[in-house]
């Protein structure tokens, strides 16, 4: 164990008490373990979720739909945009959004190859 054994007769009462305490602390309990404990734990193990090997394209499809919707909105708002500050600003915002989506789409397509 951690401490060296000492001759009991050479010890002072305080040291003797210390030795007894150490002996008591080093006494190892013997708990009763059910015979089937390991098997029972193995049965309780949660099943690991299988990793899907089929890639999904939800983000890609949502991006395409957004691009189409933005383009439609751009075309629909185009006749009203000339000379009207609010529509003009909206048109620019939609155009910027369309460009961003187009860039993302091309980058993503490139990375998926």
């Amino acid at each position, binding site marked *: 164990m951690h401490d060296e054994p000492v001759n009991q007769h050479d010890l002072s009462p305080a040291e003797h*008490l210390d030795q007894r305490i150490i002996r008591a*602390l080093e006494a*190892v309990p013997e708990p009763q*373990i059910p015979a089937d404990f390991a098997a029972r734990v193995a049965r309780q193990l949660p099943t690991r979720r299988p990793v899907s090997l089929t890639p999904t394209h939800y983000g890609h499809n949502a991006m395409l739909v957004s691009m189409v919707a933005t383009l439609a909105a751009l075309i629909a708002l185009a006749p009203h945009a000339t000379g009207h500050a609010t529509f003009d600003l909206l048109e620019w915002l939609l155009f910027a959004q369309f460009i961003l989506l187009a860039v993302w789409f091309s980058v993503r397509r490139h990375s998926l190859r």
Partner: protein
Amino acid sequence: MHTDLTFEQVVRDHQDMVFRTLLRLTGTREHLDDLAQDVFLRLYRALPSFRGEALITTYLYRIAVNVAQDEWKRRRREDRTHTSLSDDTSGWEDRLPHPDRNAEQQIEEREFQQSVEEQLRRLSHIERTIIVLYHQEERTYEQIAYALGLPIGTVRTHLHRGRKKLREALQQRQIQERRATCTTNQ
């Protein structure tokens, strides 16, 4: 299936250590199976992130200490009395072998063991945990520090302080017992 079989072997290899550590840390046999099962289930869940920088045993000690700590918190919440290690029905000290001692010495030793267990339960969680890991489980300062996430100096301090408290409490108890014996004899 293969993973489960391998894990079952891990459980079999470490169940003794987990049971006896939990028994001494919680001080009761109550729910011991459930607590041990919790330890292994937590280990299983943590295995994907287990990077192998420590022995699985050290990792298990960390989990066992956490489970015991949760149990202490739960008991404090419930504030209920629990069966103690030193109760007549569950005293594991009764089964400690002392083949070379006579009956009187054995009784005295058993009573002393019970006193130590009782005083051990009065220590703070961290002191008790460090004492159990150091003396019962024979872990090194480094292993205890890793298992508890503490600096080595703090582990030494708690160990020293815990043993000092134990010694003082047991000395006090012995003085009281002697006084009681003297009063009875007079």
